[in-house]
């Protein structure tokens, strides 16, 4: 597996030797990862791979057993208020105050931030049709999630972290949400970290993708490059192995049997009578890299 990507640009976000265990189960295992600024990065991993743990540790909401997380050069465990105000977070389960109404909730959060874009908040609240004076506990899951997104965007964060933000949105709601992210990228050049298992959404907005498996970032690469350099090989195992070696490909799939997903440095090699070559999709890569 290749090393996590290392960019010359100063990193907004850096995880160093991060380990987190729940009892005997190691979720993150000496994980190293750097994120460039101004980029939309998709974090991919299967259920239980540790995406939420990674995000929570990154934001200082969970203490690592070893290693450290840095945000804007500060340890996540002790973020100054002004740094905290530059971050927006949409948790997987919105833990909003259920007895408050959306209007009350937003007024409450507003008091914490030096910056608050009221026009944006009002616009999103009407456009996304969120009832303003119903207790939040009475809103649907989708509406609660939308409200959580409004709350995270209101203070115009430089870093936006979204943990499965679209899980309870229908396709139209996901589309609205993606448009909003696009706006965010155009207007504010925000850095966005976005975990999801809905690959089609990720493909539209992510420039980089990172695969979390076995407690580490197995691969972090620009999505376009990855798609252009990856192939799905079919045929008898021995033939495929010879083919991989001949063309100096790097096999990415770990499971025995099934198609082999491989990555090369040059042009896509031509198929032979015994080995079929197709371009790999993000789904192929996801299955291969997170097995």
């Amino acid at each position, binding site marked *: 597996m290749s090393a996590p990507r290392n960019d010359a640009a100063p990193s907004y976000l850096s995880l160093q030797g991060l380990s987190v265990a729940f009892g005997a189960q190691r979720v993150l295992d000496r994980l190293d990862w750097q994120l460039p600024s101004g980029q*939309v990065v998709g974090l991919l991993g299967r259920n239980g791979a540790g995406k939420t743990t990674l995000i929570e540790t990154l934001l200082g909401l969970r203490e690592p057993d070893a290693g450290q997380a840095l945000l804007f050069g500060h340890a996540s465990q002790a973020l100054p208020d002004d740094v905290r105000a530059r971050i927006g977070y949409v948790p997987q389960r919105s833990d909003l105050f259920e007895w408050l109404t959306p209007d009350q909730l937003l007024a409450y959060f507003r008091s914490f931030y030096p910056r608050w874009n009221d026009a944006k908040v009002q616009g999103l609240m009407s456009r996304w049709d969120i009832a303003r004076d119903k207790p939040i506990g009475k809103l649907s899951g989708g509406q609660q999630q939308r409200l959580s997104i409004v709350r995270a965007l209101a203070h115009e964060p430089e870093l936006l972290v979204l943990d499965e933000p679209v899980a309870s949105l229908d396709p139209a709601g996901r*589309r609205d949400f*993606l*448009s909003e992210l*696009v*706006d965010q*990228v*155009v207007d504010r050049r925000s850095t966005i970290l976005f975990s999801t298992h809905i*690959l*089609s*959404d990720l*493909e*539209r*907005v*992510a*420039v980089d993708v990172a695969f979390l498996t076995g407690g580490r970032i197995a691969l972090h690469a620009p*999505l*376009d490059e990855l*798609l*252009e350099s990856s192939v799905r090989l079919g045929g008898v195992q021995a033939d495929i192995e010879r083919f991989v070696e001949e063309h100096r490909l790097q096999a990415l799939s770990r499971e025995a049997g099934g198609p082999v997903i491989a990555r090369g440095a040059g042009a896509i090699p031509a198929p032979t009578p015994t080995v079929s070559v*197709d*371009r*790999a*999709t*993000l*789904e192929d890569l996801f299955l291969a890299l997170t097995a």
Partner: protein
Amino acid sequence: MPDPSLFSVVAGSAEPIYRQLVAQVRRCVAGGQLKAGDELPSVRDLAQALAVNPMTVSKAFGLLEAEGLVTRRRGLAMVIAEQHRHAQSAADRVDLLRPTLERAAQEVRQLQLPAAQALALFKTILNENEGE
């Protein structure tokens, strides 16, 4: 008035989104739907309309500019380049279609379908879209 609805993207494809966009402009220029001086939508409008990352749209436009298909006019609008006044010859257009049909032919063989049946289906599909 540039119309973003000329473009569409498919997620889940092995072809990156920026390449899909480049190929669509190439086809529209070859077919004469886009001609010299026609404006492309702005990066922002197209990114919004397709819900894709604006950097992806910029990348596609950059590639089209490098290919000489479009030029950047003062301000920021991209327009179809001067030399593309007319649709390309039918032979050139057929060449552009070939890779897609080659892929389809490969699938026909894998499915062991008789050629006549595959061609009949292609005809039906062509007519379906005509009616739209």
